[in-house]
């Protein structure tokens, strides 16, 4: 394995200082499931890692009906996957968590590491984005809160400045009038990165769709929203014909590439199929 220096931070301030002082090729080290693989496969030049797992206060999970679900930077995918609240109120998140890697990987991997790695195919991002989640960012000068939809600037790139650290994510409360789904499409069921991932979160009031968000994974430089498709659906009863034409619209809104996992054309087709299916599944909450 390539050599690197390991640093352990006890506070956010110390971690942030290490990030700025140690200079280029210094990265926060959370669950390490991306970082260690990238070091071993020589995909990323790493000179220093700053382990944040000893910093207190980053492991909490809280829920209340007005604020929603908030969890800290150190919370693993596995811990959230097993949480009854997540199973009951956020079936979309639960589906994404249970589909990420293996049990062993999920016991180390954090959701916030998955988000910060900013891969277009990351499984936790589409449902968090469709739910309108926002990110809490620490910096030594000013803390800020950023909507997840504005967090990504490209593949592997985010709005984080050097020395900034994500401390947590808040997902708005899951009301009784909401329906949610995340569908991951891969070549096989287990241990597979997404070929396409589609998340839908919607609100129904008296049979009319008052709000809907669609987020598409692995079909663009970042996870994308499908604003035109969403606009076609808002205010309708989500009848089959409208859903079909909106799903078609979503295929025009994405910008997939061809790679080892699938061709761009196939991905585009799957966006159409999965968007329709995800809306149907989200509506099952009201059946």
């Amino acid at each position: 394995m390539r050599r690197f220096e390991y640093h352990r931070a006890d506070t956010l301030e110390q971690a942030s200082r290490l990030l700025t002082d140690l200079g280029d090729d210094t990265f926060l080290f959370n669950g390490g499931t991306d970082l260690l693989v990238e070091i071993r496969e020589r995909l990323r030049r790493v000179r220093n890692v700053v382990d944040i797992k000893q910093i207190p206060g980053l492991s909490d999970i809280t829920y209340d009906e007005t604020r929603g679900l908030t969890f800290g930077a150190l919370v693993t995918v596995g811990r959230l996957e097993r949480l009854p609240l997540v199973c009951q109120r956020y079936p979309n998140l639960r589906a994404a968590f249970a589909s990420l890697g293996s049990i062993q990987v999920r016991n180390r991997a954090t959701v916030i590491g998955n988000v910060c790695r900013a891969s277009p195919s990351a499984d936790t991002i589409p449902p968090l984005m469709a739910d309108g989640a926002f990110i809490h960012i620490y910096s030594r000068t000013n803390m800020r809160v950023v909507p997840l939809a504005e967090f990504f600037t490209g593949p592997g790139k985010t709005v984080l400045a050097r020395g900034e650290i994500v401390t947590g994510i808040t997902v708005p409360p899951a009301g009784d009038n909401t329906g949610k789904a995340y569908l991951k499409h891969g070549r096989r069921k287990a241990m597979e990165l997404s070929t396409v991932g589609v998340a839908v979160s919607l609100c129904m009031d008296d049979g009319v769709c008052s709000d809907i968000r669609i987020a598409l994974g692995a079909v663009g430089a970042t996870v994308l929203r499908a604003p035109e498709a969403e606009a076609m659906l808002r205010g309708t009863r989500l009848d089959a014909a409208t859903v079909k034409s909106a799903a078609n619209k979503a295929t025009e809104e994405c910008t997939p590439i061809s790679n080892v996992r699938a061709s761009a054309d196939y991905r585009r087709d799957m966006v159409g199929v999965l968007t329709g299916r995800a809306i149907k599944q989200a509506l099952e909450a009201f059946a």
Partner: protein
Amino acid sequence: MKRIVELTINGEPRDMTVDTCRSLLDALRDDVGLTGTKKGCDVGDCGACTVIVDGEPVNACLMLAVEAEGRTVETVEGLQPGVDTLHPLQDAFMRHGASQCGFCTPGILMMAKKLLDDNPRPTNEDIRFGLSGNICRCTGYTKIFDAIKSAALEMEAARS
């Protein structure tokens, strides 16, 4: 840089002096001398390196040895309840021919132990979900499933 890491391995307090960029897997195999845990891929794909840390199964290749400070690590060497006795899973794996080349076996045994500790009567689907991070290139999995189900029955009988 080297550090001394104090931890508990298979019930015994140990310390190991390790390079800070060493994986827990390399430290267990090369520094502690516990070579039961295998290295198949070194990147989280195969599950051969599965060990149980503070009660949860993880890939030892995806964890640094320094991160094990103060923790409890269980490896396949700790599975046997005594020198002359096997864990029911080990016994069942032998009887069912669930191990051929044996490279995946330590990881699968640790995963199966955790599965049965949490869920004494797993369905086929439960076993499939539980083992989805463990690859076996030899057995075709059927005998592994048979062995786990048979061990589950024996462990249940032993409890009642």
